[in-house]
């Protein structure tokens, strides 16, 4: 057997040429790891699938026009040629362009499904069901271990602990997740008296959230006759289920906040009802009391004893009037009488006596002695002065 002996560099160089000829301008897809932006401007990374990995290089001029930064974990479709780093005899894929395979493809799928479902009327405002402000029983379709469920229950315990919660655990990512969530919705809608359903999950990559972008779930949401709140990922994540459902919550926490009025709110409402009831009844009672009092007063006036009393009262007034009148008349007469008496006094003998005169009165006959001759010698007489009487005898 003839021996062909290659020098290392020769063999490597020939292999390189062969490789470059056979695998020129091809696409390869895999997950990125070991990303290294070298100071030289070149970019090194590894793409792999479940069985193999492949070193990639993207030279300065190629990666300078990249519109995004390549990160570990990304799924990329890399365009370029197989080659070899000769000094090390190492295979490498010289990358000219890359696209994010996952997002690119998924985004396209998302957009086309969105358009299709929009045209089918699944997003129409008219088909949205109204969410009850105060539900009694709610359903949740989500992962039993997920942060979303913890967040929701935490908020509900604090805000609306009077609710009944039925949890339908479901796969929220990976194969058949959309089918499982759909089945969950259907199961919950068959139960009695569920007022609102929350479907959702916590944040993740677009692939993680993908179940919520699938048509089967969109249709299950649309068909469900119970209002559904969709709460998928973070505020910036929009999924098809957000568009189809009756209400979108930015996050699972928000879903728990909008699904029901809070205890505090309800207590406020109850207290205002209580105040109204008390006000109504007390004002009603007051009005009735006034009405009854008026009637009572009216009746009292018409009672026979009161009629008599009022007649008596008017008689009394009349009597008083008369008495007063009589008194007045009498008083007047009295005054006039006193006047006359005073007049009499002024012209009577007392005044004269006061001036020093005196009156002689026969002791026997009691007559006033007007002349000395009316008395005989030794006749006794009385001399009346202003302040007393003297007894006297005619001597001559």
């Amino acid at each position, binding site marked *: 057997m003839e021996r062909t002996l290659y020098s290392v560099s020769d063999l490597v160089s020939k292999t390189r040429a062969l490789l470059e000829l056979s695998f020129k301008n091809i696409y390869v897809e895999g997950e990125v790891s070991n990303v290294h932006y070298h100071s030289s401007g070149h970019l090194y990374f590894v793409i792999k699938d479940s069985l193999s990995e492949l070193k990639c290089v993207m030279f300065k001029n190629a990666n300078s026009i990249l519109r995004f930064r390549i990160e570990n974990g990304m799924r990329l479709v890399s365009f370029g040629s197989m080659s070899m780093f000769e000094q090390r005899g190492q295979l490498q894929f010289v990358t000219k362009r890359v696209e994010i395979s996952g997002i690119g493809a998924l985004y396209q799928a998302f957009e086309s499904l969105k358009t299709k479902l929009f045209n089918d009327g699944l997003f129409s405002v008219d088909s949205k069901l109204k969410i*009850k*402000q*105060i*539900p*009694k029983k709610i359903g949740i379709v989500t992962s*039993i271990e997920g942060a979303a469920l913890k967040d929701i*229950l935490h908020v*509900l*315990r604090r805000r*609306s*602990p*009077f*609710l*009944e*919660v*039925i*949890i*339908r*655990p479901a796969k929220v990512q990976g194969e058949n997740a959309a089918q499982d969530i759909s089945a*969950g919705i259907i*199961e*919950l809608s068959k139960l009695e008296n569920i007022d609102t359903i929350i479907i959702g999950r916590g944040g993740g990559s677009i692939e993680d959230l993908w179940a919520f972008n699938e048509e089967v779930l969109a249709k299950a949401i649309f068909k469900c006759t119970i209002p559904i709140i969709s709460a998928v990922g973070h505020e910036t994540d929009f999924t098809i289920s957000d568009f189809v459902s009756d209400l979108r919550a930015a996050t699972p926490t928000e879903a728990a906040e909008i699904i029901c009025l809070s*205890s505090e709110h*309800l*207590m406020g*409402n*109850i207290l205002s*009802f*209580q105040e*109204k*009831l*008390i006000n*109504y*009844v007390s004002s*009603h*009672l007051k009005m*009735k009391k006034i009405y009854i009092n008026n009637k009572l007063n009216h009746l009292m006036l018409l009672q026979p004893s009161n009629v008599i009393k009022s007649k008596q009262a008017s008689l009394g007034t009349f009597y008083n009037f008369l008495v007063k009148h009589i008194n007045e008349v009498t008083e007047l007469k009295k005054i006039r009488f006193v006047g006359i008496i005073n007049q009499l006094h002024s012209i009577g003998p007392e005044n004269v006596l006061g001036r020093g005169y005196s009156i002689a009165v026969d002791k026997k006959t009691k007559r006033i002695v007007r002349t000395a001759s009316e008395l005989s010698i030794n006749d006794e007489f009385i001399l009346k002065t202003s302040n007393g009487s003297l007894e006297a005898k005619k001597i001559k």
Partner: protein
Amino acid sequence: MTKVKETKSFENIFEDLENIVNKMDEGEVHLEESLELFEKGMSLVEEGKSKLDEAELKIKNLTKISKSL
């Protein structure tokens, strides 16, 4: 766990209270009726209050239910 007796939901309580207050608002009820409404209303208010005070989130896991059924 003790079996909780079926009580009115908050929605029903508020609906009933709303109706009662509206009726009283119309002002055409007799005193007796208004007292009756008041009593009914106040018992709804008390029911609501105690429900809010005593409430504790009731959680059921559907898979566990179906397993037990």
